[in-house]
């Protein structure tokens, strides 16, 4: 039974991550376009419906799946095939220890954990797994038997090993404050008070961790392993079809996992600012009504705003009706929700297990909102900052971030000792 539940949870989390990836790719393209003052992808369509470029991601998936998979003759075949698998595997299994909410307690049943495994070594597991991510990149670079790929692999190995040090040291302060490596303990210690979250208590650690995370995920401004202007495409230059896509997906999965970790460590995980879980549980009926009304109003307002963008003969084809595709159902569901509320609003009472489930749903929602914000932050940074030079990168890692992280530990330990 336990194994079945764990397997189901694993599958569900993997499924969610895999499905956020195409969405993030869409967000990346649209975000880049808006930052650079263009419109972004808006050509691909199904029967004329373009969904603001979202169809492009679907097209990409189909294209990458059906493209010919070329394995060049000069590569080291076993490692060439293994490398993308390692990259994807390592990027997703970190999710196993992320707590998505407080354990759900219904009646006298054993608490149901909203995470796959609540490990005692929690965060160390995250570091252990993410330190393996470098193998995918390195073996890909070496197996491709190509100068550019090899250089990309070497760069990434040096970069990841050196940034891992400051990343690991930056969170020692959090361990000192929480007194535990368990991620659920760290979240609980931060509590619902916004000013007790680690972003306020450990700001230095947060910035070091953030910078190191960018280096770990090989994103700009630290994307030297695949610096296009110098190394063509770096470690994945010889890859094609789905093997290339696996590297691409691994990068975005890494972003999602990284955002989860930032949200957990520094932004209170599933805690809602200033609203404690006990209060929600006590006033579950009220919260449900507020959410119900809010959702209805949001749908009506959002739907009508979309409908206002409808203008006849703007483009002169099916694109005219695009705002209506989402606008009209939005308005209708909104009115439906509000109407149902007017009729049944005062007659609905939650069953005994209601408050716990509602609380869990709200916590998961809040956590996912935080995660999506940081996913967007990654994209925002990528299209705003220029790339570092390699010696600057190493200097920043070893000569600035490492001493800062050490100083942070000293100060935190001193404060913890005094208190």
């Amino acid at each position: 039974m336990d194994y079945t539940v764990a397997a189901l949870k694993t599958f569900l989390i993997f499924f969610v991550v895999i499905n956020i990836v195409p969405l993030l790719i869409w967000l990346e393209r649209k975000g880049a376009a808006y930052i650079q003052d263009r419109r972004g992808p808006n050509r691909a369509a199904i029967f004329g419906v373009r969904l603001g470029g979202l169809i492009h991601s679907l097209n990409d998936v189909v294209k990458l799946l059906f493209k010919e998979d070329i394995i060049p003759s000069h590569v080291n075949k076993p490692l060439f095939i293994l490398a993308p698998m390692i990259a994807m595997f390592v990027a997703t299994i970190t999710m196993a220890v992320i707590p998505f909410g407080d354990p759900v307690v219904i009646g006298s049943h054993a608490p149901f954990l909203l995470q796959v495994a609540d490990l005692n070594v929690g965060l160390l597991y995250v570091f252990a797994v993410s330190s393996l991510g470098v193998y995918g990149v390195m073996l890909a670079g070496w197996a491709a038997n190509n100068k550019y790929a090899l250089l990309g692999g070497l760069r990434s190995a040096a970069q990841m090993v050196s940034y891992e040090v400051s990343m690991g040291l930056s969170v020692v302060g959090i361990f000192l404050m929480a007194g535990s490596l368990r991620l659920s303990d760290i979240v609980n210690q931060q509590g619902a008070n916004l000013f007790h979250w680690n972003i306020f208590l450990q700001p230095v650690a947060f910035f070091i961790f953030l910078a190191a995370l960018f280096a770990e995920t090989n994103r700009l401004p630290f994307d030297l392993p695949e610096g296009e202007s110098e190394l063509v495409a770096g470690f994945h230059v010889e890859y094609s079809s789905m093997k290339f896509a696996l590297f691409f997906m691994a990068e975005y999965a890494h972003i999602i996992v990284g955002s989860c970790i930032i949200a957990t460590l520094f932004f209170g995980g599933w805690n809602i600012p200033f609203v404690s879980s006990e209060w929600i549980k006590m006033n579950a009926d009220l919260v449900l009504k507020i959410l119900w009304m809010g959702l209805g109003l949001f749908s009506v307002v959002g739907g009508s705003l979309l409908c206002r963008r409808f203008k006849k003969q703007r483009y002169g084809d099916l694109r005219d009706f695009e705002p209506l595709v989402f606008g009209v159902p939005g308005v209708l569901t909104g009115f439906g929700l509000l109407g149902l509320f007017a009729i049944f609003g005062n007659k609905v009472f939650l069953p005994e297990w209601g408050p716990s489930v509602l609380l869990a749903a709200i916590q998961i929602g809040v956590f996912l909102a935080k995660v999506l914000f940081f996913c967007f932050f990654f994209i925002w940074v990528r299209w705003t900052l220029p790339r570092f030079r390699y010696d600057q990168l190493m200097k920043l890692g070893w000569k600035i971030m490492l001493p800062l992280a050490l100083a942070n530990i000293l100060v935190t330990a001193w404060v913890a000792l005094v208190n």
Partner: protein
Amino acid sequence: MESIIFYAFGGLAVVTALLMVTRQNPIFSAVWLVVCFFAFAVLFLMLNAQFIAVLQILLYAGAIMVLFIFVIMLLNVREEELKPKVLQFSGILGGGAAIYLIILFALGVLKEKVASFPILPADFGYVAPVGKLLFTKYLIPFELTSVLLLVAIVGSVVMGKRKL
């Protein structure tokens, strides 16, 4: 269940260790060694030593072997330079002698009755108990180890820099 996992991963450790020794290509040797470390981590987990298991992966697989592969990649070994390994008489002799000594040693140890150890608490392998031991009972060996590592770092810096 426990014995199945033990024999599966113990066997995996032995097989991958053998593969690591017998591969011609040093990169493959390194990759098999990483798999071997994983098998060892599972064995540590079965002994309830979570902290050591994670450190095994974090340090050995995640840091040390990465540096090994890094160096191998920089060495740029060509296929022609990797001669096929030929069994030599001296090798067989040395290996046989080593196995003989190991068997003798094992027999000698097994002859004595194993002293009964006190039962450890269930959380002895977690982070806090291990940390407590390191900073109280084994503080001096721990600090001496760090001095040893420092010496190694200073030595490598001196050798790496031609002119200080």
